[in-house]
């Protein structure tokens, strides 16, 4: 058994026991990454903060379902994603069919975009932060999501597909389109 598997095993055992020390450690360990993912997903700082807390409560409640063969961050981001979608569904009720298959496509469950440049400007710091805020605000959330999982989290494409619950081909096409859009926006900003 390698060290990653051993660590996953310890996490699984700790989550089953609802070990508060382990939960504290996990929150500290993944604080920044989870918050960044939620921010990219929702485009809203307050919502990301609420979802951050709810995600850890859900991790605690569903901890007994975590299997050591899963990568913890993949499981964590999946939980966060489902919560974000539930949160939006409660706030903006619409038919489940419409959310599952918007406008005659076969796209899976997605978030609606309500991000604005100002939301990202509040969230990102520095000069580069301002540029990236403008670019990110113009990307659909499903593109922002895969870009952050690939280029911030360095996740494999298969892991991203697992988190976003979509086929690999969809993930790839979102990454290519997202990268092209990001490049276009940043190119204009730097020119």
């Amino acid at each position, binding site marked *: 058994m390698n060290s990653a598997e051993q660590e996953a095993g310890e996490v699984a055992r700790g989550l089953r026991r609802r070990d508060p020390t382990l*939960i504290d450690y996990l929150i500290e360990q993944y604080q920044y990454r989870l918050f960044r993912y939620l921010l990219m997903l929702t485009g809203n700082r307050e919502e990301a903060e609420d979802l951050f807390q709810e995600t850890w409560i859900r991790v605690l409640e569903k901890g007994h379902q975590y299997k050591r063969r899963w990568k913890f961050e993949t499981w964590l981001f999946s939980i966060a994603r489902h919560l974000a979608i539930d949160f939006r569904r409660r706030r903006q009720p619409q038919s489940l069919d419409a959310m599952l298959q918007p406008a005659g496509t076969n796209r899976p469950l997605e978030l609606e975009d309500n991000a604005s440049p100002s939301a990202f400007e509040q969230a990102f*710091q520095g000069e580069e932060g301002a540029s990236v805020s403008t670019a990110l605000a113009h990307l659909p959330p499903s593109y922002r999501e895969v870009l952050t999982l690939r280029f911030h989290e360095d996740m494999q494409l298969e892991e991203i597909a697992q988190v976003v619950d979509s086929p690999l081909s969809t993930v790839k096409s979102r990454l290519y389109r997202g990268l092209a859009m990001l490049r276009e926006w940043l190119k204009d900003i730097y020119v």
Partner: protein
Amino acid sequence: MSEDMHERALRLIDKMQVEGLTAEERDELEAHLETCVHCQKRARETELALRTLRSALPRFDVRLVLKTQMRARLRAREIVENAGRMRALWVSCALSWVLGVVSAPLLWQGFEWIGHRWAVSRAVWVTGFALAWVAPAVVAAAVIAWQQASRAMTSDE
């Protein structure tokens, strides 16, 4: 270089970032980039875009971590306490079932005696026996259902 080669090089620039390249594809792209200014520019723009994305640091309030840790600790305690209560409930249900089974013949005889003594029809005293026998289970089920409903309400809030 033909137009197709440029198109292919542009595709490979993106593929390098998204999926990664094979050794042959990497050699092919590098050879092309050595001579093509247009594709070099695209490669630089792509790297710049990703560097900017990676370097953008969201502001993070550490108080959020402390608040979350506090909430998680309280919830963990609540879950453990609830689990203890549920265990006690299941044990008492099991004991009550065993006692019910063991005492069923006595209870039957008791209802039969009352039926004869007060000249009540068999259907009435058998129904009385059945109700008395299932009453503890019905009460326990009602308590469990009530607990689950109140827990669901609390988590919704």
